[in-house]
């Protein structure tokens, strides 16, 4: 199978791989780059568990070819913040009880980051709208919305 080189800046570090024309960004991130924080919940763009930020926009990694990310910036949950430098969203997700099983969390936090980057003070409705591509089966979304709202207020401080 013919392969092509790709070079992608994942969470600030350039990474390279040889990929096929069919490989998705999800395949590349999980199987080749070991970015297991990018979850595979459906591989069809219906659940949002694989959300990453591709050059400032939140997208489904499963609906993006690896080659389409060539030369671009990709941010996953690990790029949002770390235990040493947590993002306000990470802090507030934990404190508000917005995490249950945690499987939607990586995509949800990444979507929320993209939302706040573009709209630092969203209303609750805008928050709900902004995460409507990310399914969560555990929380009923309440605490996720609260956590995002709280993080937006904290960022303002």
């Amino acid at each position, binding site marked *: 199978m013919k392969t092509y080189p790709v070079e992608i800046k994942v969470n600030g570090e350039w990474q390279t791989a040889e990929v096929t024309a069919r490989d998705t960004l999800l395949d590349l991130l999980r199987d080749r780059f070991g970015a297991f924080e990018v979850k595979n919940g459906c591989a069809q763009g219906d659940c949002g568990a694989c959300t990453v930020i591709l050059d400032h926009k939140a997208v*489904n990694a499963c609906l993006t070819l690896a080659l389409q990310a060539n030369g671009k910036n990709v941010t996953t949950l690990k790029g949002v913040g770390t235990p040493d430098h947590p993002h306000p969203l990470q802090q507030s997700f934990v404190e508000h009880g917005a995490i249950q099983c945690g499987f939607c969390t990586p995509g949800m936090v990444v979507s929320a980051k993209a939302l706040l980057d573009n709209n630092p003070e969203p209303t609750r409705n805008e928050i709900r709208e902004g995460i409507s*591509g*990310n399914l969560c089966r555990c929380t009923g979304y309440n605490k996720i919305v609260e956590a995002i709202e709280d993080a937006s207020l904290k960022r303002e401080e």
Partner: protein
Amino acid sequence: MTTTEYIKPGDLSDLHYIMEEYKGRATVIAGGTNLIPEMRNGEKAPELLIDISDMAALSFIRENNGSIAIGAATTIAEMAASPILLDNSPILASAAKQLGNPLTRNRATLGGNLANASPCADTAPPLLALDASVEILSPGGKTRQVPLSKFFHGYKFTDLGKGEILTAITFPKPNDSTKGSHTKIGLRNAASICVASIAVALDMDGKTCRKARVAAGSVAPIPVRAYRVEKLLEGKEINAALLDECMTVVKAEISPISDIRGSLEYRTYVTAMILKRNIKRALKQEI
């Protein structure tokens, strides 16, 4: 056959050269929101993918000389947020905002939504109501314009020939007397496939309808114009009796099917209902 090759053309002349070279064996990919799952499920296996997702020449929303043009690779999110569209064609912005979800809207493109030729293509009914045309780049570098109403030939089947590519959508800037309204019926409030939709654009001369454009989605093998409804409205004063007549006529004009999202009966009923509602809403009447 499996997909083995990928090319990312640098500009339109590259694109046109490649399309000619590989005609028939290649598929254009932009957002990939339809194509990638279809490739994974084995429904499609184009030999070559031509990636236009980053082609700046195909990504624009422009207004000039009384016409609005949208590049085929413009994302649905860009359309939903476009001041040009929000000001001039809110029915199109409304449809864009209700397509898929925020993540898919960041990838999905207008060209893809139309070229996929699904009856439930969310942007098609408002574009039909706006008298839009598609711009097609043909092998040899020629460009041809096709009215959107002639673009869809059948279920998942368009006017695009081998080696042709949809490059832009244009429509005349609606005049100030044109009033529009759009409704999509879905089974939930986000990420829902259209059950039925209606877009209307009415050019009004006082209470009289000078020109009417009415289009419907998910109620025929392709997105359709309701020509008989349009004819019925044009030149008439819009009143309750005329609205009732429109409802009767539209029911005869559409040909929905029953599927997991709704029955033929519901689609027929609700299409007529949202037709009436959208005409009233366009005219700022209480629904």
